[in-house]
């Protein structure tokens, strides 16, 4: 089986052709760099995404956050549910851990926020 993919690793957005045998990737074409190949393999076997969102702070405002590493694409909804339920204590510094275990990673603040 063959699959066409657009690489999302960088803004270049390479169009790649991936040959698959069952779930196994046999070859990748069209990638301009090795990261593309890695992406193609992950994307065809167990796709991952970074989730960026906001969490509610104790004062009612919102704070931007992200997952520290990518998570399985299938877990995005679950991740959002946990992010939505969280309340951040202020003040927060950029990089502070807001949730320590969500879908195998941590959710960290991407901005500073004073109380």
């Amino acid at each position, binding site marked *: 089986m063959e699959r066409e993919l657009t690489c999302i690793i960088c803004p270049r957005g390479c169009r790649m052709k991936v040959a698959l045998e069952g779930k196994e990737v046999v070859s990748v074409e069209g990638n301009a760099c090795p990261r593309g190949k890695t992406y193609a393999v992950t994307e065809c076997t167990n796709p991952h995404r970074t989730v960026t969102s*906001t*969490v*509610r702070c104790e004062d009612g405002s*919102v704070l931007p956050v992200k997952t520290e590493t990518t998570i399985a694409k299938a877990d995005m909804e679950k991740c959002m*549910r946990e992010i*939505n339920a969280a309340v951040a204590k202020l003040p927060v510094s950029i990089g502070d851990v807001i949730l320590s275990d969500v879908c195998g990673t941590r959710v960290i603040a991407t901005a500073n926020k004073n109380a």
Partner: protein
Amino acid sequence: MFDVAIIGGGVVGGMIARTLSAYNLHICILEKERDVAMGATKANSAIVHAGFDAKEGSLKARLNVRGSEMMEQVTRELGVKYRRNGSLVIGFNGEDKKHLEELLVRGNENGVKGLRLLDRDEVQALEPNISESVTCALHAPTGAIVCPYELCIAAIGNAMDNGAALYRDFAVSSIKRTENGYEISRYNGETVFARYIVNAAGVFADEIARMAGDFSFSIHPRRGEYVLLDKECGGTVSHTIFRTPSKMGKGILVSPTVDNNLLLGPTSVDMEDKEEKETTAEGLALVMREASENLKIPVPFGKSITSFCGLRAVGNTGDFIINVHDGRFVNVAGIESPGLSASPAIAEYVLGLLTKHGLCLEKKADYNPIREPKHAFREASIEEKNAIIEKDPTYGRIICRCEQVTEGEILDAIRSNPTALDIDGVKRRTRSGMGRCQGGFCGPYVMELLAREYGTSMECVTKMGGGSVMVVGKTKGDLS
């Protein structure tokens, strides 16, 4: 018990209210919308016509010329921008020229001053961007421009400052004759009693009249669509450029506005539905086509910032319908163009009718005809601005970048008569959100100010009342 209830908070009702507020009278304005100036007043050509259009001897002609004369003083008292930029009616051929000659005669008859026919070279000298196919034009130096909703808001604000009451969301559903006047009800049953009624209900004036037992006239709406271009384009022409009129109206005009935008329009389509204010693809295309014919340079439609549609109240008599029914019910109906121009004179005329029918007038001792201009801050010198900012730092914070409107001006609009209740209300009073980004930047800040001033949540802030909410809830999943 009010002495006079004015039904309709448009520019006509507003001018009448202001005129009456100079006397010791209890007056009220009943407006069916949530804000004033929401009907034809909100969406028209913003022109103070010189007065050569209307048929000699008609009420339209008389009140137009008189209103045009009064407008400069009225706008000065109300602190409203007004510019006597003059108008040109352009002709493309011999037939147009004949028509212009007739207009010249009619204008002179109506008492319009300074009218003159121009040849091609004179037109080009006056307006270098006019189409080279234009062969002649009628020049009316007394033609002027004014912002109609600014004028209406200022007139009603001034009337309120002098004691007039404004009832919003007051859609009249019935009018009952009582012993010494009328009982006026709205749909939810709330009533207002008044000795006299002035019916200035625009396209709905015939329906209001029928409630009072007057079936003598009818009104139908005529749609006019407009396109408004960025302030960069305001200098395209300096005069208001009309085409030689036809049976359907004055054709597509091209005019600078007092705020230096360029206004193109209106189309002219007779309608049935008095609420249908949709713009149409055909209408906007017509505006663009005819406006392009008027100019030799390409009209910069890419600089268009908005398009809108207004419904003009066209009466079945061909003239303004201003009369008294039953001794106490004054119709001010069919006020289509030149209604804005005539509005100060209409108010004067209505005052006369009311006195004739027994309304006693006694000057109010503390009447103040002056309303502080709302654009004063913008036009002040740096020193004056700093004196204001020192007292009130909110005048140092710019909320609307495109129109450079400060927080102080927006708060003033929210706090002063007639108070702005929503985003569009703020926009009409301050121009915040009316510039080239159309509220993209300032919208969220204006929402915050409205929520704060009225002590409500952001979810309660609306664009124009009713269900026109700006946000439907908070993020983080409380979206039901």
